[in-house]
């Protein structure tokens, strides 16, 4: 048996569209997860006790169960309550809830890293609340959080491959389909792996350059 990449290269444009879809799914879930995480982290920092407990339960449940099984649950068990989700909706909701848990944890660490002395100093200088956020808290938090947030975005891009199991037409699903048509399995999946490697390397470089130029963050991305 020998490797024949000639047959498989015809699928390349199709795969690249799939890669864009994967990036898009990750972006939407990441953005929504970021909002959930912001809410969760601020609740953990300033909320009342029952709310803190609820957020902690949410985070430890979603961080300790596999994302795949969470989406299975959404996709197959919710119809019993009369909630029918399309594959894209199930994957997006599952990934968002999962990302929300991890991003709560990441942003909580960022909130904790705020230096209290600097906030006290702004009060002494007579800054308004908004000015404190604008000039002290926001720059500090962005700088502290940027590396771990961009890492998580790349991890989520890789995580979108499990959308294939539910029939969302992203890169891995297109690879599985092409495999079912051509039976050139190893060629197709090695090509898919190469696309994922290229995709994440490009994302790393872009995120690193952006962070370096905008926030002077020197940490390596993924």
């Amino acid at each position: 048996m020998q490797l024949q990449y000639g047959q498989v290269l015809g699928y390349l444009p199709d795969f690249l569209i799939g890669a864009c879809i994967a990036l898009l799914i990750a972006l939407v879930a990441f953005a929504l997860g970021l909002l959930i995480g912001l809410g969760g982290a601020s609740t953990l920092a300033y909320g009342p006790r029952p709310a803190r407990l609820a957020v902690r339960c949410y985070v430890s449940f979603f961080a300790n169960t596999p994302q795949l099984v969470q989406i299975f649950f959404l996709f197959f068990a919710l119809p019993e309550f009369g909630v029918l989700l399309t594959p894209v909706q199930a994957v997006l909701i599952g990934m968002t809830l999962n990302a929300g848990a991890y991003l709560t944890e990441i942003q909580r660490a960022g909130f904790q890293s705020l230096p209290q002395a600097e906030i006290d100093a702004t009060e002494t200088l007579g800054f308004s609340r908004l000015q404190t956020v604008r000039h002290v808290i926001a720059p500090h938090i962005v700088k502290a959080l940027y590396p771990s947030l961009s890492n998580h975005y790349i991890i989520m891009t890789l995580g979108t491959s499990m959308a294939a199991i539910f029939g969302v037409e992203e890169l891995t699903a297109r690879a599985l389909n092409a495999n079912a048509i051509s039976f050139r399995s190893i060629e197709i999946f090695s090509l898919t792996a190469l696309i994922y490697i290229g995709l994440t390397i490009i994302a790393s470089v872009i995120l690193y350059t952006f962070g370096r130029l905008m926030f002077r963050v020197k940490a390596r991305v993924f």
Partner: protein
Amino acid sequence: MNAIDQLIAEAPRFFSYWNMMFLGQAALNTLMVSFLGCLIGYFVGFVIATLRLAEVLPVGPLRALFIGWTEAIRRIPFLVLLMCVFFGFQLSGAHQRLFVIALTAVALRMSALAAENIRAGYESVHRLQWEAAAALNIPPLQALFRIILPQAWRVILPPSTIHAVSMIKETSLVSQIGFLELTFAARMLNQRGFSALICFGTILILYFVISWSFAALGRYAERRLVTEARRHLQLPPAR
């Protein structure tokens, strides 16, 4: 019928002895694959990370090969890696049991994560220590085991327990090649006519219990070892 009523109605039938034995076997398979995979992966990762050190392997191109290997494996989604291993076994004509295929995939992924983690540990030790060891005519491997590793392991340990726990969760993808672990068992029970609510709900709880308890164990061990090391070095206890 309401979903909750249905759940209560079928619960006695679902939680029968044989079903529980089946789920227990599946949970054991999940644990076996993830822990054996982590052990092998950590061993391979340790070798790779060590061979990446200029002091141990002074051949540039070979080191670049190892760096490229870890960088590549880390950036492939586990599902795609699994498919590559699965069809790679098929291509090589080695007919192996699904357990071996799943184990290979987990170990491969773990080796890259471990190599990255151990490299970070090595980098946390100052370069001058290597030079001091060389000046004292200590051979590189001895310097590694006697000087570098005793200082590096405190950086290596915490992420490695996190990796091991995350591997338990990632093995849920192994169900895609048909290996009987928790997720696959739930899908089988679902296909036998039990509602998805009870099947996936049960394994969600099982996964949570397993992964939460191992995470707690890891945190406990980490705290213990760090306080012990501090006492040994006669440092003041951590706040």
